């Protein structure tokens, strides 16, 4: 009857989104009077037993470096075996790329109902009902899962990491690893920057910045705030910024604590990708920009005058010369 949380990792480190998933899984376990356990496929450099502070009692690890590269088809088989051997009934993923790849497969394999993109703990008062985002952030749906085994993927940055005391038992999980059918021939990744989907603060620029040469101040502000940089669709389409920075309906959907939009008018398609941000700041010289209607704070003014002053104020606040 336990809860099993999938721990996602890359470059030897457990992802922040998985710490949220661990905290979320532990909270469900506490609520339903059961224990939370976790599973990690592959190897990480950190001490896994320390993850016990997020509320998990035991972590099953398939300690095999060949699993450091995710293959959803192979992972699904291994996780399904772990579920059957541990008797877990509630399975938790982060709704990040890994979760989106594995959770649906697992759902179909086990005929276990999936709520993809949950935003809150399940309501177990009457059945098992999980709230999730629908209509691209414009509404929520409460979804009831009727199957015996239930799968939830929790949206990144929707559930806060809860840190307590404790250490987890780490147990080797011996499994048979099947060969991968998908072969990765090349991969590239921006390094050393804050991951857009995990960032707590995002600084984003739009057409109002006039050209790629003007992104220095966006990057400077982002660096000072330990934020990720993003952009609107026209900016990505014009190749001012790479496509993996494009947030919006056709780009990446994000939900940071703070979204700072500079020179973005706020078309409905852009809002669909950022409307789950907890606080939105809009800097735009057009007082009629629709984005101000969705914003919490705003400055009507020229970005080229306002942003450098903001950078100065942040430097002063953080004591940076």
């Amino acid at each position: 009857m336990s809860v099993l949380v999938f721990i996602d990792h890359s470059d030897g480190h457990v992802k922040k989104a998985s710490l949220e998933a661990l905290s979320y899984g532990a909270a469900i376990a506490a609520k339903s009077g059961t224990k939370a356990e976790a599973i990690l496929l592959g190897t990480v450099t950190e001490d896994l037993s320390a993850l016990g502070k997020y509320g998990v009692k035991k972590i099953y690890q398939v300690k095999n470096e060949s699993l450091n590269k995710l293959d959803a088809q192979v992972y699904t088989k291994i996780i399904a075996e772990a579920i059957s051997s541990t008797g877990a009934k509630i399975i938790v993923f982060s709704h990040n790329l890994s979760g989106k790849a594995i959770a649906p497969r697992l759902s179909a394999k086990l005929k276990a109902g999936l709520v993809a993109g949950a935003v809150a703990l399940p309501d177990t008062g009457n059945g098992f009902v999980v709230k999730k985002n629908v209509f691209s952030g414009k509404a929520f749906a409460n979804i009831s899962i009727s199957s015996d085994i239930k799968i939830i993927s929790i949206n990144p940055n929707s559930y806060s990491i809860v840190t307590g005391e404790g250490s987890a038992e780490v147990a080797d999980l011996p499994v048979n690893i099947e060969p991968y059918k998908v072969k990765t021939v090349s991969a590239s990744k921006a390094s050393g920057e804050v991951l857009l989907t995990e960032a707590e603060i995002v600084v984003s620029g739009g057409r109002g910045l006039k050209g790629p040469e003007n992104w220095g101040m966006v990057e400077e502000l982002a660096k000072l705030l330990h934020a990720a940089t993003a952009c609107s669709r026209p900016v990505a389409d014009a190749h001012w910024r790479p496509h993996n920075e494009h947030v919006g309906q056709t780009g990446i959907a994000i939900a940071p604590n703070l979204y700072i939009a500079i020179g973005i008018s706020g078309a409905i398609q852009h809002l669909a990708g950022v409307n789950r941000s907890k606080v939105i700041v809009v800097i735009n010289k057009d007082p009629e920009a629709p984005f101000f209607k969705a914003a919490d704070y705003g400055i009507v003014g020229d970005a080229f005058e306002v942003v450098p002053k903001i950078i100065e104020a942040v430097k002063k606040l953080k004591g940076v010369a």
Partner: protein
Amino acid sequence: MKILVCISKTPDTTAKIAFTDNNKKFAADGVQWIINPYDEWYALVRAIELKEKDASVVLHLITVAGADSDPIIRKALALGGDEAIRVNADSHDSFYIAAQIAAVAKQGGYDLVFTGKETIDYNGSSVGGMVAELLDLPYISLATKFELSGTTATVTRETEGGEETDEAMLPIVVSCQKGMAEQRIPNMKGIMSARTKPLKVVEPAAVDPLTTIVSFELPPAKAGVKLVSADDPAELIRLLHEEAKLI
């Protein structure tokens, strides 16, 4: 070479989102319906391009929906494709929908199944992975490029903060997003020919849904924007620090 493209009907991106029937149903009155943009602009158009390159490609579209989706299917057929299959059922459960698609796909012997990366209404990103599992096939999600050489697919996909290029032997399931293809507008010839293309209606396989929607909610309205003077941007930082406590 047979390709199956999964399409879904969604409210237009600018549609007003509201609910009726005690917040149990989406208020569909006056809503303009479109083909889910990811299904149309990326999955379908890329499949059409593959057919344009190789005339022997057979391209079928599938949707799991009631008859009210027929205009959307005709619109998709106007862009391209040889025929469409509508599984006559109405469900919001991803597993139910995936099981219907998998049943048709299994029978049809498709080499390639394309989906959009998600629908813009239920945002599950789930159907593609479920179809792949039910067919025991590899699934490459969030593809931005797709090339075919014989029976080997080379697919570039989004990763967190970057991209990677994968290779897999057909048959596979691929979910498509921006980058795969450019949006097209159907021309008059396409619209005329779509009228006579076969639209097969098949009855659903017996499948039990695993989830049901209990109710909908709208997010709480924003309190309204607090404007800071452009002459004093430092005040914004003070508010974000002291009031919002975010920096």
